[in-house]
């Protein structure tokens, strides 16, 4: 082992990063690109978050106070698109870039130049999409699900830019996924069999396949929109013999796997953090892998549960209800395994662990409301109300986002060689935890009481819940500025971190010094039982 580290140091001298801004433009290094992805997603997170606060400000009280309904719709749409495609997904790709080569014992990603391209597409795609907000007629205003014909015949002119932006995002994701798959399948250190791979690597391998499978479907959907808008086709235009419902089938065939794309890597992250701070091996590694695989498979056959109200035949409704309920089984297995990992461990509660435990609890709440939504007759009452908004924010914010934040706290010593300030981290956790629940828990109630989603103004009986929700949103939003402060403070003046930054940490990345050398492993490390997961 010491030889390897020595060799790395040696190598580091030979070619470190180029100097100046061009380093970031030309870089083919997995760590640089990972860093770019992470900062980019943080920036998008703040932009999307600012839009969320615009929304919550308008909804603070009934009546129209600050913005017009037309602009409100642009805010909800762009908030959704930016958070999904600009914040959560790039953050996971950034983590994959940073961690996968280190965790499989490789020097870098398999396809470094493509890696550079897949990142640098993104700033262009998002600048284009956000710029539409300033165009005549405004930006996308048809919801992040952009149902036709609202997004075709009735869309603002800028929709063409939106379509192009989605194409670019898709290309970026597909390239990123190919790279991840190539790295995982070809560059693992000798001895790291598939069933010895770290869970984060496993979840990303499966996620990457999901991405490659569904991103082209999304591209197809937006291309059909483009043709409907500009070339007089009628894919989704009923007057021309097309079918608006077909759009939804295509969209959700992409969209449902997409929601698992945003949660599977989170499962991976949590499966690292909980064993580390419980000082105990992950319980049921094999079943964890199979659970992820079955969730991925099932994610392809449940899409129409987003469409229970479009008027499908009874048999279709029943099929999608049963298949959706089935997903609860492997998801439950994951939750039970995490708890079994904690059981009779020797736990400490550093910031990453707090976020991970909150993830397990709050994600489970989101999962339980998901089961309720799967029950078709009841879904007629929940569909397109705030109950759904509460559900998916529970799985995406304290779910996906908390896992990303947990990952940052967990691996930042490895990335920067510095330790964050534990008490600031804990403060950040508690602010976020309170903020998230105050924001989204009341939305279950306003939804059940009948408040439709995506409305800029509401009837009086929803007023209390909305006010609480808005207050929570501001707490949550501003505590993320505090997160930014904690990050900068760590990078500037954090205490030096050792190679194995956490007592219970396992895995090849912890064998490397902190900060990790520019080229992770120039000689393949040995995969000992001690560092293996299975």
């Amino acid at each position, binding site marked *: 082992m010491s030889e390897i580290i020595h060799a790395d140091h040696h190598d580091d001298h030979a070619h470190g990063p180029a100097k100046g801004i061009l380093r970031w433009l030309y870089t083919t290094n997995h760590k640089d690109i990972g860093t770019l992805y992470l900062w980019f997603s943080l920036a998008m997170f703040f932009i999307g978050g600012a839009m969320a606060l615009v929304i919550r400000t308008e909804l603070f009280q009934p*009546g*129209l106070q600050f913005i017009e*309904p037309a602009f409100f*719709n642009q805010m909800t749409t762009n908030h959704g698109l930016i958070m999904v495609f600009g914040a959560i997904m790039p953050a996971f790709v950034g983590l994959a870039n940073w961690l996968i080569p280190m965790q499989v014992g490789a020097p870098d990603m398999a396809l470094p130049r493509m890696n550079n391209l897949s990142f640098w597409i993104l700033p262009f795609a998002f600048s284009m999409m956000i710029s539409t907000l300033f165009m005549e007629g405004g930006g996308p205003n048809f*919801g992040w699900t952009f*149902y036709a*014909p*609202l997004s075709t*015949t009735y869309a603002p002119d800028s929709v063409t830019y939106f379509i192009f932006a989605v194409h670019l995002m898709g290309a970026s994701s597909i390239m990123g996924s190919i790279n991840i798959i190539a790295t995982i399948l070809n560059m693992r250190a000798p001895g790291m069999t598939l069933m010895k791979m770290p869970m984060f690597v496993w979840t990303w391998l499966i996620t990457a396949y999901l991405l490659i499978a569904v991103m082209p479907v999304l591209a197809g959907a937006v291309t059909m929109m483009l043709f409907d808008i500009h070339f007089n086709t009628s894919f989704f235009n009923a*007057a021309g013999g097309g079918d*608006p419902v077909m759009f939804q089938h295509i969209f959700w065939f992409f969209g449902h796997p997409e929601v698992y794309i945003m949660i599977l890597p989170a499962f991976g992250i949590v499966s690292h953090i909980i064993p580390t701070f419980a*000082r*105990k091996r*992950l319980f*049921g590694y*094999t079943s964890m892998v199979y659970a992820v695989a079955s969730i991925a498979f099932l994610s392809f056959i449940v899409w129409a549960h987003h469409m229970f*109200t*479009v008027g499908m035949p*009874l048999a279709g*409704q*029943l099929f999608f*209800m049963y298949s959706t*309920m089935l997903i609860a*089984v492997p998801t439950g*297995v994951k939750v*039970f395994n995490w*708890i079994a990992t*904690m*059981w*009779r*461990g*020797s*736990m*400490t*509660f550093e910031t990453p662990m707090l976020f991970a435990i909150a993830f*397990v*609890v709050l994600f*489970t709440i989101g999962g*339980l409301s998901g089961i*309720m939504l799967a*029950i*078709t*007759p*009841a879904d*007629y*009452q929940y569909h*397109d*109300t705030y109950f759904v908004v509460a559900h998916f924010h529970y799985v995406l914010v304290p779910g996906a986002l908390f896992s990303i934040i947990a990952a940052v706290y967990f691996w930042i010593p490895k990335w920067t060689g510095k330790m964050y300030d534990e008490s600031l981290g804990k403060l950040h956790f508690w602010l976020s*935890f309170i903020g998230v*629940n105050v924001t989204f*828990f009341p939305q*279950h109630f306003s939804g*059940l009481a*009948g408040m*439709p*989603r995506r409305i800029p*103004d*509401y*009837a*009086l009986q929803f007023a209390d819940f909305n006010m609480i929700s808005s207050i929570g949103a501001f707490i949550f939003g501003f505590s993320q500025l505090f997160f930014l402060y904690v990050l900068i403070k760590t990078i500037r003046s954090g205490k030096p971190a050792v190679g194995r930054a956490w007592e219970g940490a396992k895995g090849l990345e912890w064998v490397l010094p902190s900060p990790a050398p520019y080229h992770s492993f120039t000689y393949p490390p040995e995969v000992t039982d001690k560092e293996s997961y299975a």
Partner: protein
Amino acid sequence: MKNQILRMLTGTLAFIASGTVLADEWNMRVGVTDISRQVYDLHMTIFYICVAIGVVVFGVLFWSVFQHRKSKGAVPATFHESTKLELAWTIVPTLILIVMAIPATQVLVQMYDTGGEDMNIEVRGYQWKWQYKYLDEDYNNSYSFFSSLATPRSQITNRSEKADTYLLEVDEHLRIPINRKVRFLVTSEDVIHAWWVPDFGIKRDAVPGMLNELWAIVETPGIYRGQCTELCGQDHGFMPIVVEAMPEAEFDAWYATKVSSEIVRQETMSKSLTHDELMVQGEATYGTYCSSCHMANGEGVPPVFPAIAGSIVANGSRDDHLSLVINGISGSAMQAFGKQLDAVQLASVVHYQRNAFGNDVGDVSQPQDVINLSKGQ
């Protein structure tokens, strides 16, 4: 720290539990149909099952968080797999799910039983209002009307006190009789909307080119309110649904008067109107249906909404002008007004456009011209 977590958890659960007691404002409505009650029961059953799962799962988790901590001197165990456990927590949840699926399937099958209806009402979504049509062959399906938001603008912009039914009031209620199976045929004229009356336990998307079926047998007279629940553009939040369920006799009497006045109205269609009559009626129609885009002074908002003043169409062939208004311009905001307006309104609004705002064509459009044009198609 862990105390805090526990308090949070118990607080959350208490919050949920209290929610179920406070009903209405916090929870799903029980509603006024057999179906809505069944849906409510189903909802509560699943909800309690979920709460029970939550209590068990989080209970174990927090027990572990309290007991198995390093600060208490816990030494990590070394176990890390158990096929028996994995099987158990695969099979038990599956069984629970089956228990949930059985009643869900039963309710769903009942909801799909759309036959044997006593009356049919077509529900058509428009940006941003609803059109209701009583499908009644005896009267040529003719009684239909629009139902749009009646909350005054001043309440929305906070210039006057908001009424109790803020945003949930329409100019004309949909009336239905109680204790009869009413079938709603839901569709849309433009984008997708969704028609939802929470108290009936039914919701369905209004999709252009598709006819979705729904039904309800309402048991209690009353006024029931709902909203459009599918994003349909700018005023999605402003197209409420109000259904008034009336005792059967009362409904029948009301319906009879509507039908007879409808017959009288249809007769006026065959009459010719004078220039002045047309101008008065035309100005009114223009003010209600056209001026939001083409502006009261006919100047429009170029380039988005063309001016009528000096417009080539409004100064060109009368029949072209009429058919443009009847059929709309597909792919633009200019809708087909033929379905929304009657022959008198169509003829007069076109006449008005051709003879106001400085346009001076001088020809006359009569209701009969509209009827002929429509028949010719």
